[in-house]
Each structure stands twice: as structure tokens, then as C-alpha cells.
């Protein structure tokens, strides 16, 4: 029998409604009776940073990344959950302010919810609304209502809104909009399942798709409606006004739809047709004035609804205002920025070094023991020692530095500080052809270049997207940070490690300056929402670290182990010398490095941290200083830092900015790496 879950009371004892165990239990129950399962598709739609991904994570086994800034999600994520007799495909969509999309990420959402993408027919929508900014979210609500798709509003972060003194009359809001409104706290999983159940209840009713008629704009005026001439509406009028608004939107869209053969043919009647009249239907330009009148009506409806249902009693200035005074200060702002980045690096190194030392105490004797034991196994010895080198390399070298660094990146992301960084840095970046909006991608690049390039979808300007896409691989990602911390900081000191970050920054500025001089890109107006400060949740930070860390564990680590095994066999059959000889012109003649660095550099193409572990393996010791001098260590690190993006980054570059620009980026990386390493090997010989 299928277990029915209608309310919280029916949940298994000790389980909150959000817990995965509940969903999984229902899944098991339903597998017994799959024939009766109905399939539906529910989209999570909302403005950026409203908590859609957190809502998604509270119901899904498959977790996605979340953060406290606008534009964390740039592509859709799908999961399947089983509730009652429904198989629900839940889709987490990128944030969208209204159906008038302006960037590639918003376009994905637009196309899915308006059924342009036929493979995604949406049966229901849950609009995730950041409760504290309800009036702003109503901009999207009114647009979504015109789609005639069954809908529920999740008033998310309701706890935070209460703390901030926000009061919302939920019953009245439901009355005005004609749809259910449920307060939720997605981060704790509160009421997230309830939203799904409510939507299912609506879908169960046969008359849920009762579509409201359209009405012509002219006819509407003739009937004596004075909606366009009034700034506010009474409580009694508002439900009718909302209905009238829906009809008007549709009539305008229909008019365009009938008069043109534009690409909206595949769409349902959506407000975006009206939004883009100038662009797509210049012959109907006169409708632009009508559109502006309707927009005015829309804002008047929102203001009226807000005045009845939304109130705030927040004392001014708030704690946030006081913090902002320092964080955005002309002097203190930049000082804090430098301090935050320095602390993140230094603490990550300090913690990483501490953990690495402790791990070494345990792993060194094990390593020696395995080496001794493996000698008697002849041809299998390289396999055993290679496996050991790769395994212990991950445990002793990569993990100690990677995890603390990811911890600080995650805290930074969730605190709300990154958008403020964008504001501070925007002015410095403009002469280089990119805006503060790109800063987000560059900061994400410190974690992983792949996600940084993906985030460029949030940029509205094509040129800016291309420029940032070419340059992001120069940002030292967490893999390169592991190299810097373990190799440079560990052997030469913190200042030398930091100098590599400074060097990267100089290279990035130089490359941007050069490309901008050659192409003279123009910029779109800088405009971003600044989210409130939030104390990062331990649960979310832990999840984010795991999401990034698992990429290393399940993808990079096995390849690393395989790589060390291959290297050991190459060495066993003395083939490594031949390969190293091929690259000796670059490694030995040009950069003055030991010949053995050739193979590690090849593996570094797959992922930068491989180069480090493979170097240890190729040199046969973790005491690098016994084989390489300080200058060679520094030059090797500069080369690793810059020479070509890793293979995953190249693949994403090809997809996001195209093959041509990906090739330009690689050529720039290789030439910059060769040039700067060569100069460093000659110039720094006096110091190191």
C-alpha cells in the first residue's frame, strides 16, 4: 500500500517533514505500486537569492550549490521525488526578476516556464519568495499568474523576516492573489513538503486550469474602467484588479501574437512579448505606450497589495547599515577587503600546514612500510607503490590545504560580502573592460575555474562574458592554491606564497588591459542587488565543502592514483627518461628545472594538483628541497600557476565562450607562463 502523507501528523515518528528518510520511505512504498503513479513536473521559480536551491536541497537527495549572492544557480537542476501517488520531477531554476529576462541564466528559466522547451512541460509552479522583500517579489508573481499554471507561493526565510520586524498578512495576500501562500524556512526544511502537498491538492482538482478570458485594452477603457488613472486600490477591489491585469496582459500579447510571426509562436501568451516590443515587433511600436501604462498599473497593484499585507518596524539605522558604513568606506572598505583575503589565505595555510604535519606523522611510517613490502613483488611493485603514492598524496598533500581553503570560500560566499566586494572593485575594473559583476566570477574562480566560467551566464553583456571567460583561467583556483601552499609557502615562506597571488593579479590586469586596448569593449550599466548579511549556517557550509570536495574524491583522486601508478611503471621500464627528454628544452634549457619535472607538468594538464603529487612521486621524495633549489621551486610554481587551464576548464570554456576564444585563452596562458617563468628564472637568481 502506498503510504499517504497529507500533513505533518502523518509523518513517521521522529522525522521532520523535510528529512530525506521520509521521501525515501515513500519511494519504497510506491515502488510496490508503480502502475498507479502519476508523473508531474514542478518548477521552483523565484527572484535571484530567494532560496530556491536551498528549498530544492531540503527535498532532494541530489544536492546543489547555494550561496548568499544573486545568480548562484545558472542552469537548471532536476530531481525526482515520490509523494502520495505522484512521481514528481522537481526543477530548480535560475533566478528571474520577471518574465522580462536579461541574461542567459534568466533565459533558461523563461524558456522552461513558458514551455518553449517542449521537453519540459511544467504542471505546477512553486514561487519562492524572500519574505523580507515580498513587494519586490510580487513583480514576478503577477507575471507568473498570467501563465495559468497552478501555483503556490513559498514565503521563504520567514524566520529572518520576523527577526527584522516584518509582518505579513498571509490570509489577505492569498485573497488578493487567489493562490495559496505558505511561510517556509527552507534552510531548516520547514513547510517545504507542505508546499508540494498543497500544489498536488490543486492539481488533483479538475478545474484548476480554468483560464481567465482576455479583454482588449481599448474595450477595457471604453467599459469605464478607471484602473489606469488610479494610484491605489481598496482591499475589496484588489482581487478583481489582479484578474483584470491578467486579462490585459494576455490581450496585449495576443495582439502581438496575431499580428506577427515572431519567435513567440512557440510560447504561451507571456508578458515578455510586451516587454520586448521594440526588439521583436517594431511594427507594433505604438503598443509600447500601452505596455508602459500596464507596467504602471502593475506597480500600482504591487504598491496597493504591499500597503495592506506588508509592514516593517525595523529600527534605523540597522546593524547591517552600521557594518556597511565600514565595509564600503573609501579607506576602511579596501583595507577590510585586503585583510579578508589575506586572512582567508593565511588561516587556510596555517590550518592546512598543521593538519598536513599531523597526517605525515601517521602516513610516513606506513609509506616506508609499504615500500619495503612492495619490493618483493617484482612487476607488481610499481602498482602497489603507485597506488600508495596517489592515495597518500591525496590524504597528506591535497586534502589538508584544500578543505580549509574551501571552508573560507564557502563562508565568504554565504556571508553576503562578495556583492559588496563587487561594488568596491567595480570602479577599478571598468578601465579594463569588465564591471564589478564579473568580480563574482573571479572570486568563484578561487574555488574552481569551471564554476567561475559557468557563472558568466549571469552577465548581460556578450563582450564582457567573452573577456572574463578568456581571463578567468589565470585566477589561482583551489587546486593551484594547494600547489602554492604546499610547495611555495611550505618551503619558501608565507610572503613568497602571497607574492604568487599578487603576481596572478598583475597578470590578470595586464591581460585584461591588453585585450581591452585591442578590442575596446563597451560596458553595460553596472547594477546588482546587495543581499543582507547572513551568518553562514554550519550545515550549509559543510554541504558546500562536501559538494566541491567530492569532485576531488570521486573524480580527481582516482585519476591521481592511476597517474602515480603509470609514472611508477614508466620509471620501472625506464621510459620516463625518454618522455622527460622530449620536454627538457622547456624544463631544463628554458626554465632551469630538473628534467624529472616533465611528466608532472603533463599530468598537471588534467588537474593542477596532480602536478604536485606527481612531482613528489617523480623525484621520489617529499623533501623537495633536497632535489630542487628555492629558485627552481618558485619557477616551477609560476609555470604551474599559469600554463594552460586544466582539461575541465577548457571543456567549459569551449561550451560557454566558443572554441575560438578558448584557443585564444590557452595560447595566452602558455605564452604568459613561458615568458614569466623564464624571466623569473633569470631575474630572481639574485634573491633566491
Amino acid at each position, binding site marked *: 500500500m502506498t503510504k499517504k502523507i497529507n500533513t505533518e501528523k502523518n509523518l513517521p515518528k521522529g522525522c521532520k517533514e523535510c528529512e530525506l528518510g521520509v521521501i525515501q520511505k515513500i519511494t519504497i512504498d510506491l515502488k510496490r505500486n508503480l502502475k498507479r503513479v502519476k508523473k508531474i513536473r514542478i518548477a521552483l521559480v523565484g527572484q535571484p537569492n530567494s532560496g530556491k536551491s536551498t528549498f530544492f536541497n531540503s527535498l532532494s537527495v541530489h544536492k546543489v550549490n547555494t550561496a548568499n549572492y544573486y545568480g548562484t544557480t545558472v542552469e537548471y537542476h532536476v530531481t525526482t521525488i515520490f509523494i502520495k501517488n505522484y512521481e514528481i520531477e522537481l526543477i530548480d531554476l535560475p533566478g528571474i*526578476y520577471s518574465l522580462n529576462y536579461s541574461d542567459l541564466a534568466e533565459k533558461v528559466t523563461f524558456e522552461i516556464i513558458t514551455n518553449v522547451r517542449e521537453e519540459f512541460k511544467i504542471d505546477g509552479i512553486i514561487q519562492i519568495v524572500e519574505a523580507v*522583500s515580498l*513587494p519586490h517579489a510580487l513583480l514576478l508573481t503577477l507575471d507568473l499568474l498570467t501563465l495559468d499554471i497552478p501555483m503556490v507561493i513559498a514565503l521563504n526565510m520567514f524566520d529572518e523576516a520576523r527577526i527584522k520586524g516584518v509582518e505579513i498578512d498571509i490570509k489577505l495576500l492569498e485573497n488578493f492573489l487567489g493562490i495559496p501562500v505558505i511561510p517556509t524556512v527552507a534552510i531548516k526544511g520547514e513547510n517545504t513538503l507542505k508546499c508540494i502537498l498543497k500544489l498536488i491538492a490543486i492539481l488533483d482538482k479538475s478545474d484548476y486550469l480554468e483560464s481567465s478570458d482576455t479583454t482588449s485594452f481599448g474595450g477595457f477603457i471604453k467599459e469605464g474602467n478607471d484602473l489606469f488613472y488610479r494610484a491605489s486600490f481598496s482591499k475589496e477591489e484588489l482581487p478583481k484588479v489582479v484578474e483584470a491585469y491578467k486579462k490585459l496582459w494576455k490581450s496585449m500579447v495576443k495582439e502581438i501574437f496575431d499580428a506577427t510571426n515572431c519567435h513567440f509562436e512557440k510560447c504561451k501568451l507571456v508578458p515578455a512579448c510586451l516587454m520586448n516590443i521594440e526588439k521583436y515587433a517594431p511594427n507594433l511600436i505604438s503598443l509600447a505606450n500601452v505596455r508602459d501604462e500596464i507596467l504602471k498599473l502593475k506597480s500600482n497593484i504591487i504598491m496597493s497589495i504591499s500597503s495592506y499585507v506588508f509592514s516593517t518596524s525595523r529600527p534605523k539605522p540597522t546593524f547591517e547599515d552600521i557594518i556597511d558604513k565600514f565595509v564600503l568606506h573609501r579607506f576602511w572598505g579596501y583595507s577590510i577587503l585586503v585583510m579578508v583575503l589575506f586572512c582567508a589565505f593565511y588561516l587556510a595555510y596555517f590550518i592546512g600546514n598543521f593538519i598536513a604535519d599531523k597526517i605525515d606523522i601517521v602516513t610516513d611510517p606506513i609509506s616506508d612500510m609499504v615500500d619495503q613490502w612492495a619490493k618483493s613483488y617484482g612487476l607488481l611493485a610499481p602498482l602497489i607503490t603507485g597506488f600508495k603514492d596517489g592515495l597518500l598524496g591525496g590524504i597528506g598533500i591535497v586534502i589538508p590545504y584544500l578543505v580549509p581553503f574551501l571552508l573560507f570560500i564557502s563562508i565568504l560566499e554565504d556571508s553576503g560580502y562578495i556583492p559588496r566586494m563587487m561594488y*568596491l572593485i*567595480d570602479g577599478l575594473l571598468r578601465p579594463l573592460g569588465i564591471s564589478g559583476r564579473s568580480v563574482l566570477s573571479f572570486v568563484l574562480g578561487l574555488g574552481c575555474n569551471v564554476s567561475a566560467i559557468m557563472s558568466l551566464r549571469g552577465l548581460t553583456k556578450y563582450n564582457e562574458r567573452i573577456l572574463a571567460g578568456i581571463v578567468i583561467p589565470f585566477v589561482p583556483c583551489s587546486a593551484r592554491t594547494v600547489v602554492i601552499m604546499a610547495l611555495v609557502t611550505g618551503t619558501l615562506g608565507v610572503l613568497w606564497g602571497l607574492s604568487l597571488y599578487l603576481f596572478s593579479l598583475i597578470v590578470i590586469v595586464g591581460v585584461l588591459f591588453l585585450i581591452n586596448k585591442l578590442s575596446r569593449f563597451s560596458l553595460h550599466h553596472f547594477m546588482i542587488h546587495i543581499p543582507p548579511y547572513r551568518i553562514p549556517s554550519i550545515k550549509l557550509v559543510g554541504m558546500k565543502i562536501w559538494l566541491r570536495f567530492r569532485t576531488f574524491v570521486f573524480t580527481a583522486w582516482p585519476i591521481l592514483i592511476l597517474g602515480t601508478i603509470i609514472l611508477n611503471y614508466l620509471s620501472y621500464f625506464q621510459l620516463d627518461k625518454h618522455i622527460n627528454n622530449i620536454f627538457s628544452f622547456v624544463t631544463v634549457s628554458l626554465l632551469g628545472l630538473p628534467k624529472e619535472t616533465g611528466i608532472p607538468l603533463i599530468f598537471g594538464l588534467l588537474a593542477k594538483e596532480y602536478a604536485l603529487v606527481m612531482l613528489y612521486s617523480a623525484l621520489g621524495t617529499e623533501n623537495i628541497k633536497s632535489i630542487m633549489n628555492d629558485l627552481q621551486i618558485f619557477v616551477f610554481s609560476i609555470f604551474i600557476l599559469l600554463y594552460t587551464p586544466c582539461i575541465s576548464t577548457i571543456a567549459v570554456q569551449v561550451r560557454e565562450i566558443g572554441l575560438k576564444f578558448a584557443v585564444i585563452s590557452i595560447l595566452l596562458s602558455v605564452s604568459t607562463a613561458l615568458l614569466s617563468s623564464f624571466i623569473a628564472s633569470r631575474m630572481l637568481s639574485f634573491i633566491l
Partner: protein
Amino acid sequence: MDPIQRGKIYKIKQIIRDKPYYMNYGLIENTIIKVIDISSDNKNFYLEVVGFNRKLAIAIDILQDIILEEVKDDKEN
């Protein structure tokens, strides 16, 4: 109009072009904005859209598209 000043409150009197785009960010005619900060290079300002409980960082260039009107503090309340 006088240059935008930190701490002052303005009403959006008119949006000349790209109304739907600005609306997405809560910049609608007749809404009140409060300028919290102006960047050191005077290129951007940081403001609060009062009715929407939203904060925005925005390029000062948008004043080509938006006409603001200064209002006194007591009007906000």
C-alpha cells in the same frame, strides 16, 4: 538637478527608457530611494529601494535614463 549626495532621499520622477529592465530591480516611477553610499571614484552609488526593502549597487550612468527628485526626510516616513 544637483549631483546625487550620500544620505539623501530621492523619488524616481520618471524613467525615460528601458522601463521593464529597471523595473526588474525595483526601480519604478514614484518609488523612493535612499543613497547610502557613493563609491570613491564617484562612478557607482549604493542605495536602498525603500518600499521594496532592497539594496542596490548601481552605476551613476543610469541617471541618463532615470530622473530623480530630492525629497525631504519626513516624506519618507
